């Protein structure tokens, strides 16, 4: 096993580095004519609106700020800087460096969203073609790039479902969105945001949709169903055509959560499975970096009959070039101040150029190969099982369980996760989906070499061996990260809750 030790700079808060008078950046001075024209600023600003006390920001020199944040970056773990990042459902594939170089071009970064269309033909062209390619990849007819993230796309998708039923005069009856119990938490939350009631249906033993359970809940109250395929267990819903038929016959729409699209690129398309609305995560399937939590980008793609309801504007192509069209009389309006997260879009555009049709398909196939390879090897590790239809192939990810190990040694999935961190490997997604106890949701992606897969498998095997011989060693992990186990209960407790420097100082003052 290769050793690992994460940096620990014991870094103070930026506020604790502050000394009066220090500056990290100096703005230019106003030209004399400019100062004269404005006169005394304190006279210019209405007296009751002038800030009398400066904000208590830290006073730090440039090199100190730089070092502080470089130190902090070194106490973080990225897919491009780490060793292995199998975070299930998050598709932590390589974020190509060339895309970063291209996206930092001032020809993109310095564009204002209200610029005349004739001056932004390049970016409009990019948005137009990116959408066209995404439509081809998903088998859909029209769409928008406006949502800033997957959940934002889900919210928009639910608004479109709403608008569709409203247009047909049925919104008062159609109040329900169906989601399987294995769904991402964002699905029910997005449906709620759009004013729907959520109806949860149980999954079958193999984790797939239970057709009988579905039939028993659909009806005149059904607005739609939200589904990922492959599902959160990594299993393809083979009954998808029938599922779509059941929902459509009841008058509902089918919504595709694109979190798991990576597995099927070029092999099948949501549009061909009967889905009416699709969201994609450019920060998953199309390689754009996740930035420690965002920005992402969550385009929404629809079938022709929903096109009129899309948010405005959309990029269209006319005789004089590309333009922003506001011509959608039934539009739901806007869900973002402008046109969405453009910078990630350019990276996704460049990614598609780099991959081409065969590259996208190869990415899907190798991601599936890698996931199944890991699953088959890990299910042989003592204390680890592959519950729910172990004989069926997985797609891009597999959900294993450590409940046997937990029962036999007291070592839980959480402990395995922390022990993996000690080996320089990021943990899988844990305790999700909720239908698998002690879940380890592993998505290696196509970006990982066989050597990394083997090292991960070896690490789990080693952790298992220790769990069965000296469990306390696993229970005390992690030790090689910047900090050891953190007290999450203390963080959330009303007496010790501390969400800002301001609250921290008050706490110190109060003892």
């Amino acid at each position, binding site marked *: 096993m290769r050793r690992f030790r994460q940096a620990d700079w014991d870094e103070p808060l930026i506020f604790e580095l502050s000394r009066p008078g220090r500056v990290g950046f100096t*703005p230019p001075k106003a030209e004399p004519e400019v100062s004269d024209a404005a006169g005394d600023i304190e006279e210019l600003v209405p007296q009751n609106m002038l800030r009398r006390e400066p904000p208590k920001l830290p006073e730090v020199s440039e090199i100190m700020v730089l070092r502080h944040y470089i130190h902090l970056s070194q106490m973080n773990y990225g897919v491009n800087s780490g060793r292995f990042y199998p975070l299930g459902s998050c598709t932590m594939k390589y974020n190509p460096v060339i895309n970063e170089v291209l996206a930092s071009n001032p020809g993109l970064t310095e564009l204002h969203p209200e610029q005349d269309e004739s001056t932004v033909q390049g970016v409009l062209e990019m948005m137009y073609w990116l959408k066209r390619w995404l439509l081809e990849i998903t088998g859909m007819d029209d769409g928008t790039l406006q949502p800033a993230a997957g959940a934002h796309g889900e919210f928009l998708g639910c608004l479109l479902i709403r608008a569709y039923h409203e247009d047909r005069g049925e919104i008062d009856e159609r109040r329900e969105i169906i989601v399987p119990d294995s769904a991402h938490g964002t699905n*029910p939350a997005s449906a709620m945001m759009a004013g729907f009631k959520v109806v949860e249906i149980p999954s079958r033993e193999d984790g797939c949709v239970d057709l009988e359970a579905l039939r028993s809940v659909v009806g005149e109250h059904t607005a739609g169903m939200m589904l990922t395929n492959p599902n959160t267990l990594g299993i393809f819903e083979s009954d998808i055509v029938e599922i779509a038929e059941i929902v459509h016959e009841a008058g509902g729409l089918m919504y595709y959560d694109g979190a798991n699209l990576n597995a099927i690129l070029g092999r099948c398309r949501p549009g061909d499975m009967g889905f009416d609305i699709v969201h994609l995560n450019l920060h998953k399937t199309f390689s754009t970096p996740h930035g420690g939590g965002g920005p992402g980008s969550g385009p929404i793609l629809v079938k022709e009959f929903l096109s009129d309801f899309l948010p405005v504007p959309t990029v269209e192509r006319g005789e004089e070039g590309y333009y922003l069209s506001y011509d959608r009389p039934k539009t739901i309006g806007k869900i973002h101040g402008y046109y969405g997260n453009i910078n990630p879009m350019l990276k996704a555009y460049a990614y598609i150029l780099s991959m081409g049709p065969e590259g996208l398909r190869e990415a899907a196939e190798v991601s599936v190969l890698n996931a199944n390879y890991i699953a088959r090897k890990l299910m042989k590790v003592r204390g680890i099982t592959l519950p729910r239809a172990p004989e069926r192939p997985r797609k891009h990810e597999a959900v294993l369980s450590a409940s046997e190990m937990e029962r036999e040694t007291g070592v839980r999935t959480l402990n395995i996760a922390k022990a993996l961190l000690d080996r320089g490997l990021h943990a899988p997604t844990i305790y999700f989906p909720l239908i698998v106890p002690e879940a380890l949701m592993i998505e290696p992606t196509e970006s990982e070499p066989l050597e990394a897969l083997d090292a991960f498998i070896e690490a789990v095997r080693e952790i298992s061996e220790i769990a069965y011989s000296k469990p306390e060693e696993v229970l005390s992990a992690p030790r090689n990260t910047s900090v050891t186990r953190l007290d999450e209960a203390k963080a959330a407790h009303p007496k010790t809750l501390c*969400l800002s*420097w301001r609250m921290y100082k008050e706490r110190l003052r109060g003892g």
Partner: protein
Amino acid sequence: MPHPYIPNSVAEIKEKMMEEMGIKSIDDLYADIPAEVRFERELNVPGPYPEQEVRRRVEALLGRNQRFRCPPFLGGGVWPHYVPAVVDEIVSRAEFLTSYTPYQPEITQGMLQTLFEYQSLICELTGMEVANSSMYDWATALGEAARMAGRLTRRDAILVPYLMSPNRLAVLRAYTEPVGMRVIQVDYDEATGLIDLEDLKEKTNSETAAVYIENPSYLGFVEEEVEAIAEVAHDAGSLFIVGVDPISLGLLRPPGDYGADIVIGEGQPLGNHMNYGGPLLGIFACRGEPKMIRQMPGRIIGMTTTVDGSKRGFVMTLQTREQHIRRERATSNICTNQALCAVAAAVYLSLLGPNGLRELAELITSRAHYAMRRIGELPGVRAPIFSSYHFKEFTVSFEDRTVGEVHRELLSRGIHGGKSLVEEFPELGETALYCVTELHTKEDIDLLVSALEEVLG
């Protein structure tokens, strides 16, 4: 052909793996996809191209965007500002850039501490106790703030200024109307542009969940009667929501100082490039009462210690508000946010500090006033319409020419003028919204003024 991004795309490696797994072909792993939905042809997308060719194509594409002789005089919700080199250096570090949400806190202390610092800096800037670690943008932060006010007050009306940003208004409607909330517009004083207090009082009642103002306003003037507005809201048991341009807070009173319950805003000026309008940074802060914190949307980072108590550390906290735990009972569905933009804002505010921010805000307002005076002196031009103090944006109205004509003539001289308000607020006549920041030097402003002089002839 092996692909550089796919290490296992070498035929021998794949065969070795399949042999160990006891399968013959990749197709075996897709056997459960029913034949009727299998995609049998090749996707009609371009590529694959090697890196060098991708670069050539994308750079040519971006070359089709036009550059101007000076930064565009555009604002309204995204503004041209200078981004210090240190900011770009930090946000391009792979450890930050290519990490996911910090679900494993022990190995992601760097991002967690940085976001905690971001929250803390936003609190100092806005005068609030608590901030979340980001929303998508100002517009969606407004939508979420209105929903939060609805939950807290169990009321359904949101009062907004008539002269607010139409984009943000559209997003507010999309976020509130599906759950039966109503958006009600409040009139303005025609001389000053400020909220008409009488109209506000008339429209505020026991159904009012919140009163919202933008300060500086969409048209650049600063709302002065803030205490009176706060009083109207609070007397009716409503919340007071204030939307801000954070750069202005170097010079202007923080909303926490005049009774705001929720402060939102656009963090793009804090070290984030314009990027044609995204990614942006939705600021969201509120007062520190537990019942407010429990209703906040979005991720919040909290300080804690290691279990053994020996060291300080940071974790995502109060997650029982969030979708992955609470599902349909969550305060919001937001998951992926704008974390890296928040990192940029943290670095930016740390670099500028209290003095740098004050100097910058003074420079910006000086330049804006210089531009306003010079443009206002031109024949047939009025700048601005309203008599109130303007921070960095202001209206420019033309008596004899249309906004469209002036815009096209400026463009032909390599200058991008302000945004037309003709469609958004036709009652303001041939009026455009101009924005001046530290990026516009005196020389740039003079260039604009002499071009306008020519155009207006």
